[in-house]
């Protein structure tokens, strides 16, 4: 084809103009002036909400607004941060992962205060400790709790039986009331069933042990407390199974293969049941759940929030409070194993049934009380970053045989440095 220069230039100019136009249109969606927009977008990630409930919300509110749902893949948090700081095409409703909430709190002014929209009146329906984690120090509520992750002890009843140990959840919970009891149980298990392990890795134990306390790595006055007794105690607890030889030292995806084979117990949140089920479907009926040694902790659980640019706050709040009403929460548990943050849901039929994977055990009897007993802790914005070196050090103990005391020194000095970098005193 012989393209003349003029023709080429004209085509180029047209293309440039067209792309400019597209960009201009793209900008339009975020900057509607009035606050009663008819179009609302909802961002979440696969599995954050029950797709069925969301689909119903679309028709339920279809008369008032058009709800567009986007399931965002990949790194949700960094995409949200980028969009918020760009300030255009911001979703009207967005999910925020529980572990990221603390890092969004310093920028609470990017979100609407849900208390102004009526969250105050219904907040008593939701677990207080969970709601608090999405509230700023001056009382601004930016997150509406979706779900929580109460932890428990999953165990192989058939293996326990083989080793001559009790298999009834209540009895196991009583035998493994404290971490020390639990590890003693593990020693016995390993004696009877050589080649099996009690836990998959020690950083998961550390995670749980830290979560059982009310203080974490940074206190409310923004001071580093990761070298104090409560963390040291969690560390010692985590190292115990390693010294006792109960640690499978699994830090990669070979967990998928191990979970059905030589792991006799597993510490995890309610949603973790699904992981076990998917990784080891042939162990169906052999697992049971009981209260976690030393009390419950929380792992994960997300929120919905309304960015400041929300085009119709009232309607958006109506939608999220409908999606997250205790009734719909209970349905979310039934179809997507999303454990509700609303205790009223725990007694609803959708949640009180027996779980065939756990031999028909009514798991809510374990997770329900655990959910209510989780201690309210303070999580600083830099908490996750400061925690990382501890877990890395624990992994080095497992992988490189580093002496636990040396690893502790390393972890604390690194954590201090990260804390300082992030502006912690």
């Amino acid at each position, binding site marked *: 084809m012989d393209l003349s*220069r003029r023709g*080429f*230039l004209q085509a*180029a*100019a047209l*293309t*440039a103009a067209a792309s400019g136009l597209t960009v201009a249109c793209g900008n339009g969606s975020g900057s509607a002036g009035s606050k009663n927009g008819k179009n609302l977008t909802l961002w979440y990630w696969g599995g954050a909400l029950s797709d069925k409930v969301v689909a119903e919300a679309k028709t339920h509110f279809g008369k008032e607004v058009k709800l567009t749902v986007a399931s965002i893949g990949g*790194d949700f948090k*960094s995409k949200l*941060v*980028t969009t*918020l*700081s760009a300030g255009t095409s911001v979703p009207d409703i967005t999910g925020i992962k529980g572990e990221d909430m603390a*890092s*969004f709190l*310093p*920028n609470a002014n*990017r979100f609407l205060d849900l208390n102004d929209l009526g969250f105050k009146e219904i907040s008593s329906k939701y677990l207080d400790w969970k709601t608090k984690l999405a509230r700023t120090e001056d009382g601004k509520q930016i997150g509406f709790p979706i779900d929580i992750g109460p932890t428990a002890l999953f165990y192989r009843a058939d293996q326990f039986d083989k080793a001559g140990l009790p298999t009834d959840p209540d009895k196991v919970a009583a035998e493994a009331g404290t971490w020390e009891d639990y590890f003693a149980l593990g020693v016995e298990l390993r004696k009877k069933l050589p080649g099996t392990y009690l836990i*998959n*890795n020690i*950083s*998961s134990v550390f995670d749980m042990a830290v979560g059982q306390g009310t203080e974490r790595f940074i206190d409310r006055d923004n001071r580093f407390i990761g070298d104090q007794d409560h963390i040291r105690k969690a560390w010692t607890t985590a190292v115990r199974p390693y010294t006792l030889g109960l640690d499978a*030292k*699994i*830090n*990669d*995806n*070979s*967990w998928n*293969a*191990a979970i059905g084979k030589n792991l006799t117990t597993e510490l995890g949140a309610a949603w973790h049941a699904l992981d076990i089920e998917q990784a080891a479907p042939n162990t169906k009926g052999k697992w049971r759940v009981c209260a976690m040694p030393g009390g419950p902790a929380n792992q994960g659980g997300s929120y919905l929030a309304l960015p400041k640019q929300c085009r119709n706050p009232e309607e958006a709040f109506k939608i999220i409070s409908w999606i997250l009403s205790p009734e719909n929460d209970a349905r979310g548990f039934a179809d997507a194993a999303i454990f509700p943050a609303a205790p009223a849901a725990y007694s609803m039929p959708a949640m009180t049934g027996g779980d065939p994977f756990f031999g028909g055990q009514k798991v809510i009897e374990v997770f329900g009380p655990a959910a209510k007993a989780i201690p309210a802790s303070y999580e600083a*914005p*830099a908490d*996750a*970053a400061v925690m*990382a070196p501890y*877990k*890395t050090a*624990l*992994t*080095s103990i*497992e*992988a*490189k045989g*580093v002496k636990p005391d040396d690893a502790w020194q390393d972890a604390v000095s*690194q954590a201090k*440095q*990260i804390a*300082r*970098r*992030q*502006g912690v005193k």
Partner: protein
Amino acid sequence: MTSPPVAGPAAAPRRHGGPGPARFRPRRTPPAGAVRPPRRRVLSYWRQYLAISPFFLIFGAFSFFPVFYSLYLAFQRWDGMGTMQFVGLDQFRFLWDDPVFWMSIRNTLVIWVLSTVPTLFGALVLATLLHSVRRFKGFYRIALYIPNVTSIVAVSIFFGAVFSNNFGLVNAVLGVVGISPVPWLSNPWLIKLVIALLMTWMWTGYNMIIYLAGLQAIPTQIYEAAKLDGAGPVRTFFQITMPIMRPIILFTVVISTINGLQSFSEPQVLFGSNAANPNLGGPGQAGLTTLLYFYQSAFVNNDYGYGAAIVWAFFVLIMVLVVVNWRIVQRGRKS
């Protein structure tokens, strides 16, 4: 690792709007043959500038601006959303005292050496072999190049499965022979070895194609003359092929240095399923490369200022290494 840039543009003879092929001569140019046409105002070339503008606009928005913005960020503390706070050289001071940063540099350099040396050497050998092959040329070229066009993520997942400590293929094969399982993905050195192996696998074919192009440009007469003088294949390789290929080798060394030091996806995907620290390079952080550390600081910990400081410090290091490489490869030429 991003896809490598293609070889730089061939140096074209410069023209200042002077006589050229009639088709590309701007209108209103005085007929060729004048001693030197008067310089024309830049604006009168607007069509030409418009035609080349898309590249520069996109380059400006997505490369040029971010590069310098990141330099600006290196002197701030910023969580990505809130207000920026000027902190002067604090980020660089933290960097200097940060053992993890220095460890990441060490990891990167070790992985780079472990991957670049076998890659380039293997590529040269393969190219020489392929150059003398008579049959199935196309098949060999495609087969050896394919790893380079495969997605890094897919390859990393595959390597992760093959080298898995407990249930991997490699350990299974070793088990059959009677060797006890090797902790490929938890021993600090083996982690680096696996990453380097992955990179070697991916990049040998790419460099081989470049070498092959270079080899084909060497006139056969030289080889014939060498043969007549009684030089064997090894001697021919070292005394004829290597010296003539020097500029091409230099090019691949520079490109491999830049690429090899930017290893990121490989450790990120290999250890992405690490329960404790998805973005910290696996057990003992042995696979933590500098770029992975940067990613972790900026996009996981939302410490954008520190992330920017890491990459700029790393930029200086890459520049130093490229210059050193250049010198080493150039050295022989003058003598």
